[in-house]
């Protein structure tokens, strides 16, 4: 919202109603942004969704976090050590880190924060990642001295630090105990991040204020870590559900940064006064094939479908030429992405027809379901339907609401194929685990693949990990439990007055990088 617009708006109102409009004190520098929905709350690791995680990551930090290439790097820990048996993690904390209330962070607050999220009384879903419910159990988590915190596991677990750094757990964020009331109920976040939670008016906006006493790391910005010295005084987020409205507000100067769809990005790219950032993310857009559907029981049918669908054409179409196909579940920015992951079944309609004939396909229905939510689920499904029909499949498309699709996904019922997306998994093993396993929702239930995935999550040997990921990739192309398309392009439109914005694969906004020119 710019001053001149408000001046004119106020003048109009004053003329109309015959009274002078009052002025408001503007912060020294403000960046106005849009979120497509309200945040769920202010309690990191407890109340969450994608938007909420973005806001939380501005004011809360964990001991470790993700780097640009999804490696784990220390954040509030200066360093960390892992014992030879892989069971004990020792975090050496940074000195002089200040909470938003001015107090210095010590291991005492770290231990309190760990128990808040991972302890028995925790309301967070994250506790199940550490209490044995899903295999891994943290045997103890305690402050050794003022600046040393130690966690002991019941077994070696290669993705333990990656699990700690999960965005949905607020990176197991470190908060001051005054963040809760005496009865333990939530009050407000007192974190260590470069921004402090300002005002949150539900349904309207949320504001973050720069934390002037933030103690930054010395390194350059790296993923969600590194140096995080903020310059913009206020980050203001309006809740704008409609992309077209957000784009109009950007053009009007009422918003400075908005997420765009591909078409709007292509349009705005040439417009004077605006910039467009197009970044490939680690969000995997795919078609999940239902392992419980008898039509797909024959692997040749699944292979035929993979040959009938051209990821390159579809990605080019849905990204207006900005993006390209990357069908492997492993994102291209991952250190485990090699030429093996770059391979995928070629688009070959004749090959598809031949496989269909071999398998005795006789016009059985291939029911595709898709939602119309953001992310081109529907458009992807529509194009796949056309390509499958071109190869001779009896493909039908049913548009469902997102809650309905999630239910179908969870129960593994009501579809043959669905247009789906997975949020970023920042470990190559997890990139396969997200759709591999025994549960009904898992598209890949092959026991050998499941065993390989489990091994990938346990091994601490990088070479062995790469071998496993390569093996899984080859099997994925052969068994076709899903048909990968690519890793979603994130489009961000911004006004010229904003600089410093850089998106990254995880798609989490880094407000501390922003600068404004006026």
């Amino acid at each position: 919202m710019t001053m001149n617009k408000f001046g004119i708006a106020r003048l109009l109102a004053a003329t109309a109603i015959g009274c002078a409009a009052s002025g408001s004190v503007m912060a020294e520098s403000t960046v106005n942004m849009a979120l497509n929905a309200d945040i769920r709350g202010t309690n990191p690791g407890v109340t969450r969704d994608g938007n909420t995680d973005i806001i939380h990551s501005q004011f809360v930090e964990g001991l470790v976090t993700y780097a640009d290439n999804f490696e784990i790097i220390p954040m509030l820990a200066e360093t960390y050590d892992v014992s030879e048996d892989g069971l004990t993690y020792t975090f050496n904390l940074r000195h002089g880190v200040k909470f938003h209330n001015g107090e210095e962070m010590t291991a005492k607050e770290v231990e309190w924060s760990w128990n808040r999220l991972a302890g028995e009384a925790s309301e967070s879903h994250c506790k199940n990642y550490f209490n044995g419910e899903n295999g891994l159990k943290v045997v103890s988590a305690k402050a050794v001295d003022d600046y040393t915190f130690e966690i002991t596991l019941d077994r070696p677990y290669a993705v333990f630090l990656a699990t700690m750094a999960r965005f949905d757990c607020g990176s197991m964020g470190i908060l001051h105990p005054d963040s809760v009331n005496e009865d333990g109920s939530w009050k407000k976040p007192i974190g260590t991040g470069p921004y402090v939670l300002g005002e949150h008016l539900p349904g309207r906006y949320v504001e973050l204020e720069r934390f002037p006493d933030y103690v930054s790391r010395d390194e350059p910005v790296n993923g969600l870590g590194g140096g995080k010295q903020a310059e913009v005084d206020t980050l203001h987020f309006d809740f704008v559900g409609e992309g077209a409205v957000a784009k109009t507000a950007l053009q009007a100067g009422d918003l400075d940064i908005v997420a765009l769809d591909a078409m709007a990005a292509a349009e705005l790219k040439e417009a004077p006064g605006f910039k467009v950032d197009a970044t490939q993310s680690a969000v995997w857009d795919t078609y999940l094939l239902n392992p419980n559907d008898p039509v797909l029981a024959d692997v040749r049918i699944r292979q035929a479908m993979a040959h009938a669908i051209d990821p390159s054409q579809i990605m080019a179409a849905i990204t207006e030429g900005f993006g390209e196909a990357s069908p492997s579940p492993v994102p291209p920015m991952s250190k485990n992405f090699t030429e093996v992951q770059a391979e995928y079944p070629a688009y070959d309609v004749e090959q598809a027809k031949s496989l269909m004939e071999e398998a005795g396909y006789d016009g059985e229905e291939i029911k595709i379901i898709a939602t119309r939510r953001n992310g081109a689920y529907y458009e992807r499904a529509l194009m796949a339907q056309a390509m499958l029909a071109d190869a001779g499949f009896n493909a039908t498309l049913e548009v469902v609401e997102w809650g309905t699709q999630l239910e179908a996904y969870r129960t593994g019922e009501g579809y043959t194929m669905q247009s789906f997306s997975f949020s970023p998994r920042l470990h190559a093993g997890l990139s396969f685990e997200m759709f591999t396993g025994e549960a009904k929702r898992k598209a890949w239930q092959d026991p050998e693949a499941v065993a390989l995935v489990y091994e990938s999550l346990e091994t601490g040997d990088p070479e062995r990990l790469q071998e496993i990921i390569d093996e899984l990739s080859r099997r994925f192309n052969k068994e076709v439990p899903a048909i990968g398309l690519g890793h979603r392009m994130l489009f961000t439109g911004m006004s010229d007055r904003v600089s410093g914005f850089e998106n990254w694969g995880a798609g989490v906004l880094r407000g501390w990088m922003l600068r404004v020119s006026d």
Partner: protein
Amino acid sequence: MFLFVARRLLMSVPTLIIVAVMVFCLVRALPGDPAIMMLGGNIDDESTLQMMRQQLGLDQPLPIQFLAWLREIFSGNLGVSVLTGQSVGALLLDRFSVTATVVLLAITTALIVAIPAGLVAAHRHNSRTDYAIVFLTILKLSMPSFWVGLMLLVVFGAMLGWLPTVGYVSMSQDFGLGVTYLILPVTSLALSEIAVMTRMMRAGSLEVMNRDYITHARAKGLPERQVLWRHVFPNAFAPTLTMVGIALAGLLAGAAVTETVFTLPGIGKLLVDSIYGRDYPVLQGALLFIALIYVLTNLLIDIAYSFFDPKVRLT
């Protein structure tokens, strides 16, 4: 009148109980699991899902859930939002105040424009003025609300830069600024209602104008303005008033499209968000609240009838 109002309010109690049962059943019939939505779609972990269902009370049998909800309602508590943890009652009142402000201003504006426009069109039946008014109303009725709202934003927000395009400031916070945030949504809503009400007013007036008492009024030498306002308007307004009542109740129940386009934190947007988020307490509370709005609005309209139509007596 007191007895009439009391009886109508009493009669609304069984209506609201039936609505409560229907709302509960319909909401539960929706596919989709609130626990999944609560976890932001993250359902990798079945034990977490179970834990969330327990926290939300969704692991209980449906009759138990219904009785628990009824008990809460009768104790004046509509529960808390599973998504945000806010009190549903407070949330509804907060959002309703936004919707009510916009809707009442829009309906008032629409009436101020539509009544004279309808009367003039009828008075100058089959003239160019009449054709122009009918053409404009048809044109507006043919335009989708979403598109009109967006065009208002593009023209007055992006192109002219006169009015804000996103956000909301209530007039109690800052009157002048609050007005600027209301102009476009009120205009958008009012345009739709003007079109409908003008046509109703025109049709009603045309019917009345052929009556003997209008001819009589003219014959005794009353000026045409007086004929229109004293004799045509009160008799032609009753059907339009019915339309006003329906529109008022419908819009107060949530002008979801307008609220979405203009990012207004109103009850319509709340309802849509709670459907997508499977926020059962908010959804149930909002639907019940909307039923109450319909009951009260219809009551007010029935009372208003007695002022316009002498044949109507409140007994």
